[in-house]
């Protein structure tokens, strides 16, 4: 007598064989599994499903596979939220990525600004000496007697490169760019003939002996030292500033004559051959301070997310619709956060950091 294989009984018996406690009816569906991975269940539901997953290989495999499918950023966010450490103090938050990048960038900018200020101050410091009245000039121009800055012999008197006994007009000061008012020092020729000096260079101009040339030099000297260019500054301005720093300006002790070493870079500054930029540069520098604020304002970062153009102020991303409404603070990963709309959470995840988002009539500050 042949018996047909009873598939249904076979399936039921196999499931109950190992006594895994999980019957066909109690397998969680995809909705429960997804909610479990996202920790969106009550404690009671979670405990019930934990017990099932612990004994049911199939469901546990689906659970682990679902978790593996999650986008990496969601896993990282969940891991970050699940940390047991206490909230970071404000000074530590500066070094948390991505704030770290902003912090380091700000520090680099600050330092280079400070350094440039110190350098330029030293250059401009000698302007206070007697030559100052003659330094009140219009825009510096390049005269026929002066060589352009890209002529090494005339513009850079390096410590290792003795120059010929050129006329004073060909001194480093005779660069094609403006420079601070030189100190009134005689003995300009000594600069050319003497060797390197151990004294640290002070970037000042060496006053040529010849009055006519001196006047021409004075004409080229600007009234003040310019700060470092901000990002976005035009090239001529940047070149102007570069040549300011790269001039072979000599180090000068008191009035006993030049002692030699001229601080100059090893590379020639690249000066625009078009000399008309000089006038333009001077004009622009006088407006520099006034436009600083405008430039900084224009430089505020902005980002378009989900069709909205967020701007960043003081490290916080603001919704364009934000009009100083009362902010409702929400922490990422909290129950309140999970209750927010998907669009809001998506924006928050994409921007990162602290975000103020308008949803409906409410302003949410997500941290």
């Amino acid at each position, binding site marked *: 007598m042949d018996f047909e294989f009873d598939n249904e009984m076979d399936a039921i018996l*196999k*499931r109950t*064989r*190992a006594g*895994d406690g999980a019957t066909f009816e109690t397998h969680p*569906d*995809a*909705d429960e*599994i*997804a*909610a*479990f*991975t*996202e*920790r*969106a*269940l*009550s404690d*009671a*539901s979670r*405990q*019930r499903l*934990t*017990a099932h*997953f*612990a*004994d*049911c*290989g*199939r469901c*546990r*495999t*689906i*659970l*682990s*596979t*679902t*978790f*593996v*499918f*999650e*986008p990496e950023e969601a*896993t990282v966010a*969940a*891991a970050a939220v*699940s*940390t*047991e*450490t206490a909230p970071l103090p404000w000074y530590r938050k500066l070094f948390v990525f991505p704030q770290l990048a902003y912090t380091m960038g700000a520090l680099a900018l600050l330092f280079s600004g400070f350094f440039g200020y110190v350098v330029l101050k030293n250059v401009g410091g000698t302007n206070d000496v007697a030559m100052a009245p003659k330094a009140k000039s219009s825009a510096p121009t390049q005269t026929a007697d002066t060589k352009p800055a890209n002529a090494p012999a005339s513009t850079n008197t390096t410590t290792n490169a003795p120059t010929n006994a050129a006329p004073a007009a060909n001194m480093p000061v005779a660069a094609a760019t403006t420079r601070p008012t030189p100190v009134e020092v005689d003995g300009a020729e000594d600069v050319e003939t003497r060797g390197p000096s151990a004294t640290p260079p002070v970037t000042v101009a060496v006053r040529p002996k010849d009055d006519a040339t001196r006047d021409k030099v004075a004409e080229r000297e600007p009234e003040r030292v310019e700060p470092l260019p901000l990002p976005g500054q035009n090239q001529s301005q940047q070149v102007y500033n570069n040549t300011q720093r790269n001039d072979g300006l000599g180090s000068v002790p008191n009035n006993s004559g030049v002692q030699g070493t001229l601080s100059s870079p090893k590379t020639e500054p690249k000066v625009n051959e078009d000399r008309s930029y000089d006038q333009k540069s001077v004009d622009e520098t006088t407006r520099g301070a006034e436009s600083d604020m405008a430039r900084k304002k224009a430089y505020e970062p902005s980002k378009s997310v989900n069709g909205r153009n967020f701007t960043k102020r003081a490290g916080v991303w603001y919704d364009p619709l934000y009009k100083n409404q009362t902010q409702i603070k929400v922490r990422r990963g909290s*129950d309140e956060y*999970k*209750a927010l*709309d*998907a*669009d*809001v959470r998506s924006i928050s995840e994409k921007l990162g950091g602290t975000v103020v988002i308008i*949803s*409906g009539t409410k302003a949410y500050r997500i941290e």
Partner: protein
Amino acid sequence: MSAIAVKHSSVIDESVAKLISRAADSRGLTADDVRPRVEKSLTKYLFRDNENASPSDVRTFVDELRADDLCLVLACEKNDSAAWEFLVSTQDSTVRSAARKIASSAEDADDLASSIWAELYGLKHDADGKLKSKLSYYSGRGSLGGWLRAIVAQLAIDEFRKQSKLVQVEEPREFDNLASESTEKQENRGFLSQRDNPEDIFGDKQMTGDVSKALKTAIASLGDEDRLLLKLYYFDEMKLKDLGAMFGYHEATASRKLARIQVDLRKTVEKTLREVHRWSEEEVRRYLTETASKLGISLERLVTLFIFALIMQDFLR
């Protein structure tokens, strides 16, 4: 409507209205469209575990539902073409990405993704003539993307299991069989000592059987979460970071928990071997320490092998 839902009817009405207003795009849905699904979710998650849920619990539960995702799904079920377009455009990448991770080839991944969309759209009609779609199972409790990933995983795993049963598979191997096979490997120097004496061989097999039983007892005595953690780590090869994220604690905490579980297992195994199987202290020490070291593995790997054997039994069932 269940009795509990009737009891909280006014609160549910109020919460549903709030949910619709909370959605960035309610897609023209009314309270009548949304309420049945919300009640279903409440019954499935809240009232099932807590029959005495308060109105405040009901409000909190509904407030935590994903309003946008739920409205999108409900609109799709109403055959809103704009909603379907939005669903496909925003979630197709999620489905395909998940399918690619589990499928063996790009073709299989495309087939899997197409199957998912077909199931979501609905292949059959119910008694009312409506398409029976998997979308009806989405409660709004978790995110729509997470639910779709779970659907992909579920379909893929079930398909794999079905195909596995069609192939002639070996009988599930017990721990002692695994250990026996390992004697063939030179580097293991034999889990069982290679002796010709049948009594000695029988004795070794008996010892292995005792250990496997002790391990089984020890694992069964663990708490549900500990047992799940152990199996997810050893069999599903989940990383500590992912385990921590799933359970809501730090990666270092997951590591400490696993270490504690191993210690607990060891204690239980030793106790079971001494008290149930009447091993002496010397035999316990020799077996777990010296014999395991001969294999070049630690108790951790013994546990892994044993769990693997147990899991294979579950998986191939």
